[in-house]
């Protein structure tokens, strides 16, 4: 089975898992309760907001990894892979920001709060956008690839900082995956979360592979056009 077929299979499986997690979120996972005993319905956003955020961190790692590989080998394929990984990161980052802002409005009563997690994640969002601004501002292909690789590696440093900041600094953002026997979640909540997380990571992989396949096809098309033209 080739890479494209595997990606399509992973896409279908990821879609099935995320759909299952979506249904489990509303029909199986226990509702979270506020300290005063009232139902905290906004907590339902957690089941997809966190997987999307984790996916953004993980896919961003590949921007840095392929950046390092490019700088070591100067192989243009790694530059393309880093660019696609950053594109997928941008997709997940924007979804994380949007769902996070909606949750913040309900939970904290404001759309935005300059607290450590939100601030570091906002910086990461700006860095991901800046990656594409940088790419589009350099005309020379080789220089563009080198600058983008170096920038991608440096930008990724913010991802672990943003992930661990709620453990290091005083933050009002909930600490997710805090450890312990079941991360403080009851079994139906934890299982729903894990299924959503696996599904989202599978979708991230499938998106990356599909975009890579698209770029490879574009290159093949360009080569064929040159052949026809020549």
């Amino acid at each position: 089975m080739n890479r494209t077929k595997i990606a399509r299979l992973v896409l279908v499986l990821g879609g099935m898992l995320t759909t299952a997690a979506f249904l489990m979120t509303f029909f199986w996972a226990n509702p979270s309760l506020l300290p005063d005993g009232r139902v905290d319905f906004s907590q339902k956003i957690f089941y997809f907001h966190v997987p999307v955020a984790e996916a953004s961190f993980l896919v961003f790692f590949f921007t840095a990894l392929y950046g390092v590989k490019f700088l070591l080998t100067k192989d243009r394929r790694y530059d393309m892979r880093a660019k696609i990984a950053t594109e997928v990161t941008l997709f997940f980052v924007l979804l994380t920001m949007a769902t996070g802002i909606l949750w913040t409005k309900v939970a904290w009563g404001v759309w935005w709060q300059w607290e450590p997690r939100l601030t570091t994640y906002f910086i990461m969002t700006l860095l991901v956008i800046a990656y594409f601004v940088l790419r589009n501002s350099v005309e020379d292909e080789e220089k563009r690839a080198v600058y983008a690789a170096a920038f991608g590696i440096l930008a990724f440093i913010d991802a672990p900082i943003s992930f661990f900041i709620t453990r290091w600094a005083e933050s009002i953002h909930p600490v997710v995956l805090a450890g312990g026997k079941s991360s403080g979640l009851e079994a139906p909540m934890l299982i729903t979360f894990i299924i959503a997380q696996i599904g989202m990571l599978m979708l991230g992989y499938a998106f990356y592979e599909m975009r890579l396949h698209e770029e490879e096809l574009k290159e093949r098309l360009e080569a064929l056009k040159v052949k026809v033209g020549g």
Partner: protein
Amino acid sequence: MQDVYSAVLPQAPYVIGAYGLIWVALLGYVGLVFSRLNRIEKEISVVEAAVKRREKSES
């Protein structure tokens, strides 16, 4: 039950908004990439046919 409704109803638009956004974005992204893939694949088959015709006429 009254308590549940009073807690859930004010929060519902935000939860629906978040999930709606996620599903629209996921489906939209997949749809966009697949439509572009189909277009490029069609274009490749047209250009490949042109290359074959050209090679035939030259030989």
